């Protein structure tokens, strides 16, 4: 069995000394190698902190994170990381930026891929970074990260400032890398719809904790959307969200056993599932279930 791309055990990060300044707490999860993992959560959930910890740019306050079988600092030559702010040198041209990528990654640099990503956006190689639009900068930052031919690609809100066409195009490039090289991709995003077809693994964060983690197919299969007469008791099933309209109750649950035959049930879509969890920050997390199962 191959080692996981990322494995976190009781991972926590606090900024400053205040007791309530925890950005992440007690996060344990595993992203298997070769997956395309979506990191989802509301603003302030800890997504960026988590990615920066995996990239070795932050040091955990508690717990550990293992990346590609070693600590993040040692794995850094094999990791590509694109920060939300896409830091690049504004005074360099596009061509100079790519040359810098080649110089900084001797022995691994894939000039062809980097060049293709930039060329597909019809970017002038002589243009300076400071003169580029936000979306064009994103393209250069992704070219730099992909040129490194990373085994693990960490992307923090990579598509936020791209138009729909460029977004589809770059997502295609990312999927192509995953198909050709088995690259593990972990990306945070707010655009739930675009994740559904591209990602096969999910990490849902809320309030600095892991609320759901696992293969998207399995997570979806563990939940059921149902409608039943108002006043129906849903125990012992775990209720994520419930709403009563007139005589009808609709709910999203994690069944704890067989369901009564007179409930009308159907499978939720990823978007429905995520929205239900995001609307209900207090809903039970899957972490609770695993703890119980282990006990």
């Amino acid at each position, binding site marked *: 069995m191959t080692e996981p791309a990322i494995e976190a055990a009781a991972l926590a990060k606090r900024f400053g000394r205040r007791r309530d300044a925890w950005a992440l707490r007690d996060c344990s999860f595993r992203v298997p190698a070769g997956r*395309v993992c979506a990191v989802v959560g509301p603003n302030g959930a800890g997504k960026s902190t988590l990615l920066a910890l995996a990239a070795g740019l932050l040091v955990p306050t508690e717990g550990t994170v293992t990346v590609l079988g070693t600590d993040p600092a040692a794995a850094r030559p094999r990791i590509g990381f694109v920060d939300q702010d896409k830091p690049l040198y504004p005074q360099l041209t596009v061509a100079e930026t790519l040359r810098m990528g080649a110089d900084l990654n001797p022995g691994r640099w894939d000039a062809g891929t980097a060049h293709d990503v930039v060329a597909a956006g019809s970017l002038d190689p002589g243009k300076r970074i400071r003169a580029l639009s936000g979306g064009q900068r994103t393209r250069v930052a992704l070219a730099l990260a992909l040129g490194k031919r990373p085994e693990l690609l960490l992307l923090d809100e990579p598509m936020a400032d791209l138009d729909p066409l460029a977004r589809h195009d770059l997502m*295609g490039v990312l999927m*192509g890398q*995953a*198909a050709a090289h088995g690259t593990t991709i972990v990306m945070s995003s707010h655009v739930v719809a*675009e994740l559904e*077809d*591209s*990602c*096969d693994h999910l990490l849902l964060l809320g309030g600095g904790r892991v609320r759901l983690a696992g293969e998207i197919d399995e997570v979806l299969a563990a939940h059921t959307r149902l409608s039943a007469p108002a006043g129906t008791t849903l125990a012992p099933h775990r209720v994520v969200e419930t709403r009563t309209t007139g005589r009808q109750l609709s709910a999203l649950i994690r069944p704890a056993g067989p369901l009564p035959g007179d409930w009308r049930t159907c499978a939720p879509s990823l978007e429905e599932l995520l929205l239900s969890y995001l609307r209900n920050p207090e809903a039970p997390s899957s972490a609770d279930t695993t703890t119980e199962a282990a006990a």
Partner: protein
Amino acid sequence: MVDYRIDRRSGVATYVQIVQQTKQALRLGLLMPGDKLPTAREVVEATAVNPNTVLKAYRELEREGLVEARRGLGTFVRRSLGAAPADSPLRAELEDWAARAREAGLEREDVAALFTAVLDTQFPHRTAEGDPS
């Protein structure tokens, strides 16, 4: 060659869409035995879907004996489906018939209803292949 178009709103699982579109291309003779399917990389670069989704669709087609994966070479069509290539005489007759229906003043919905009714009499309930519902 076949060009997959993924409709996110169709409610049909993405891998099923790829299976269905491949079968459609086989039925219409757009894909023939010996033809190579696009590589997973080509499909995902064009559609931005997860590579495992494409591999799952190809495995399904392989399981049904329609294609075979040759290691290091790609996935190839083994046999075609149905007997109605795009340029068959049957299609020409149907074109003629549709043209006559239009001349007779039938609307698109009338034609569809008529065709479905005849289809149901001649081919009593056999559920469509690959249809998940």
